[in-house]
């Protein structure tokens, strides 16, 4: 079985990916390129992590980047209540991952989320993310503490790449909602042309060498 891994330049998602690879699943890697709301070095980290994951798998893995910053982030920030930005952002990532899954024959989406780690990863917010794609969303790290994830990343050799200098997301709101109800999220999404945004992300999809 094959899944699409949402791969950032951070510590968590590469660990989630290797856990799935170790269970024998195949993965296509999808990075949601957040530039200009991050920097080129953050993008470079992702290229390094793709190589690390391929090395761990012992084979090349399909890897893609979608222009999330340009196609989605600016529009969401301009159109929607800022408090819900992170959940809305995640839902677009999941939608595009679902669209890629259909393209590459994958049956599920994998994320590096763990419960309570950041504002977008509260139980309420994770629940509100679900349903953005019809595919199952697997979260191998959901019950792990950050220290456990860091320990695994060190063992895998991804920690040094993930913690190299890079600009974190610059479009996060000052006060993100930690308990965004699905009702409120859907009301915000009603202000957006969801299909057009996902289509733009897929149109800008490129393979990572």
């Amino acid at each position, binding site marked *: 079985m094959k899944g699409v891994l949402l791969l950032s330049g951070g510590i968590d998602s590469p660990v989630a990916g290797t856990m799935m690879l170790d269970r024998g699943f195949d993965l296509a890697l999808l990075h949601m390129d957040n530039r*200009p709301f991050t920097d080129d070095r953050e993008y470079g980290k992702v290229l390094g992590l793709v190589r690390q994951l391929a090395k761990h798998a012992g084979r090349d893995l399909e890897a893609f980047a979608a222009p999330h910053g340009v196609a989605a982030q*600016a529009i969401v920030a301009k*159109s929607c209540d800022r408090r819900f930005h992170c959940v809305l952002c995640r839902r677009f990532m999941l939608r595009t991952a679902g669209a890629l899954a259909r393209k590459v024959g994958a049956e599920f989406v994998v994320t590096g989320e763990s419960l309570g780690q950041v504002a977008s990863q509260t139980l309420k917010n994770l629940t509100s993310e679900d349903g953005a794609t019809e595919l199952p969303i697997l979260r191998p790290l959901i019950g792990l503490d950050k220290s456990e994830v860091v320990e695994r990343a060190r063992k895998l050799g991804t920690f040094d790449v993930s913690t190299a200098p890079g*600009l974190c997301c*610059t479009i996060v709101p000052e006060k993100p909602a930690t308990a965004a109800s699905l009702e409120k999220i859907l009301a915000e999404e009603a202000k957006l042309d969801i299909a057009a945004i996902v289509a733009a992300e897929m149109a800008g999809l490129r393979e990572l060498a």
Partner: protein
Amino acid sequence: MDFAIVKCCSADAFDAVPQSLVKVDIGKALAALVAAGWHEVADAGVMCVVAKDGVEATLYSSGRVLVKTSDAGIAERAVARLYADSGL
């Protein structure tokens, strides 16, 4: 405009904040910046990303400016120029 500027600890970037309280109308500021020769990279309503002479900067409605460079002198000059060109 007087401002304080610090290096971001984990990125090749500098963060500047005005010494006085300001509220920036991003739409107006962006129009002024483009008229002054800055290139619009992104307009997110509550913030905008602009570039000039190879330096990219993000202007927030609070007046905060994030400049993507590892050079303190370049960052300081870019912030001063951006504030002046945006009419702040």
